[in-house]
């Protein structure tokens, strides 16, 4: 039933978009302010290829998938978190990529390039672009020495001065780290629940955007909280805020962002060139130095950074690499369970 409806919907959508598309436009779907819409980058790419980059944005991964579902043929490049690739594949929202056309692909860290999340039946659906950590960041004004343990967030000294993102999966995975569990295979969910319930009194509020986090640090309302590594870099580089990343001994959650080409894309050639440019050391060094970026998946691009840069020195250190637990796909049912648990915790009905 759904399948048939979807087929009709897709057919109608194709008819509609076919007549409105303009040649040589390159439609990119990504978070706002996340590399692809940097003016220097779109200008450079346009000068290089003649293709005009048109950015569209999403505010949650679910919204990104909805936009792909309901706009077949509109987008040429989409940025997908590797953990969501499986869902995009199941719904046939993305197409295989001819990696031979992407020159920088050969320099991508092999473990990431060959990830089973991105490669199915010998075909590549996702090109690793950047990776980073969901870990803790501190307000430097609140600490003389940065904390080494994630438990610092539970410390009563920080009552009402801690923030975490209002995201069920992130919250549960934080609880898993704090209770010494594997984030992708949580055995003792009750321990996670108890741990998060104990954390809640310390929470000032939940953040949902970088801007929230940065404003709270700027007005000195928080001491520490979970944050994304690229965002912490941007807070420091671009906004000169007293923010520092800490990678606790209990570990940190790693995520991998990739580029994919949606099913029905009209400018596949442009998409391939764009992905290649996004991976280039040229783009990456400028992005990291002037704006602040997560770690490029391209080893050659990272090597082009100054030796003392955070993304090369800290994120590249073996001691850090050992502590990272990369996110694996989560089933819908699991996600719904996590959400339910998280909502109950927040409301206190559990």
């Amino acid at each position: 039933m759904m399948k048939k409806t979807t087929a009709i919907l897709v057919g109608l959508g194709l008819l509609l978009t076919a007549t409105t598309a303009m040649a040589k436009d390159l439609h990119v779907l990504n978070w706002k302010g996340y590399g692809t819409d940097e003016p220097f980058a779109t200008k450079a790419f346009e000068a290089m290829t003649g293709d005009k980059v048109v950015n569209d944005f999403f505010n949650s991964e679910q919204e990104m998938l909805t936009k792909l579902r309901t706009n077949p043929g509109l987008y040429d490049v989409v940025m997908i978190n590797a953990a969501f690739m499986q869902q995009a594949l199941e719904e046939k929202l993305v197409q295989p990529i001819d990696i031979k056309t992407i020159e920088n692909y050969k320099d991508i860290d092999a473990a990431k390039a060959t990830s089973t999340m991105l490669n199915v039946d010998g075909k590549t659906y996702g090109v690793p672009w950047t990776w980073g950590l969901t870990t803790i960041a501190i307000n430097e004004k609140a600490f003389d020495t940065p904390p080494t343990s994630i438990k610092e967030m539970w410390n009563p000294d920080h009552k009402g001065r801690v923030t975490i993102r209002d995201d069920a999966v992130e919250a549960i995975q934080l609880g898993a780290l704090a209770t010494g569990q594997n984030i992708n295979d949580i055995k003792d969910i009750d321990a996670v629940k108890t741990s998060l319930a104990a954390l809640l009194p310390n929470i000032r509020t939940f953040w949902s955007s970088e801007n929230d986090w940065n404003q709270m640090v700027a007005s000195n309302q928080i001491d520490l909280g979970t944050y994304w590594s690229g965002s912490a870099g941007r807070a420091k580089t671009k906004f000169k805020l007293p923010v520092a990343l800490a990678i606790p001994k209990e570990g940190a959650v790693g995520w991998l962002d990739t580029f994919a080409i949606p099913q029905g894309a009209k400018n596949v050639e442009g998409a391939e060139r764009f992905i290649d440019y996004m991976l280039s050391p040229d783009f990456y060094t400028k992005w990291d130095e002037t704006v602040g970026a997560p770690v490029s998946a391209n080893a050659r691009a990272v090597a082009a950074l100054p030796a003392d840069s955070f993304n090369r020195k800290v994120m590249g250190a073996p001691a850090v690499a050992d502590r990272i637990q990369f996110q694996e796909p989560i089933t819908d049912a699991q996600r719904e369970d996590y959400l339910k648990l998280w909502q109950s915790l927040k409301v206190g009905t559990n």
Partner: protein
Amino acid sequence: MIRASAFLPGLGRFYIGLVLAFLYLPLVIMAAMSFNASPFYQLPFESTTHWYVALANDDGLIAATFNSLKIAILTTAIATVLGTAASLGLFRYEFTGKRLLQALIVPPIAIPWLISGTAMLIFFFGTGIGRGLHAILLGHVALALPYVIIVVSARLQTFSRDLEDAAASLGASAWQTTWKVTLPLIAPGVIAGGLFAFAVSFDQFVVSYFLATPGQTTLPVEIYAAIRKGFTPEINAVSTIIIVFSMSLMLVVSRFFRFGGDH
């Protein structure tokens, strides 16, 4: 109550002053922060016009602002006309199913916009209406209509049907009665309905968010997307310009156009 004491009007004016202070407090801050150097609303205040310069160079934001204005004005015009007509229909005539029609005004307001937006996206996509400014207009008018109908109907309840009956018995046609008798008396309600429609459309971000396409977007959509990564005071700057502009426009209008409906 009105002339009984000279004290009461003074108290009344003071009270209006307080209400206005409450209503304008965040707007004043919004405007002040558009001249503050810190992108995070940090104090001490450091004066700058940087955000206005940045705004002038931000073609996307300016285009979105004009799209918003265009859609809000069209929405206001369409929703006010259709909504007033529907209110008159509901007010004048008795028929079976009237209560149902009145109840049907509730869903567009009560269903969270997120659900309406998703529903519209799927339906417009499935029927070939598609996304874009035309789809946004279609959605905005539908969301604004209930507001117009509720406000105009409330005004109609203060209006006596006898007046229409009298006009009709004197030989006026239905059109003449509407134009010459009914509309002038309910004009404040119609204008208020229009103001509501404008506000609903101009501030609507959820439904627009689903129906906008790259390049065909509105101001609230841009703002909503911007808060994820760096909500710059540019947004404050454009909001300040809009408020100052509409305030001047309104003050001019109120000088030349009596809509308060003194009778």
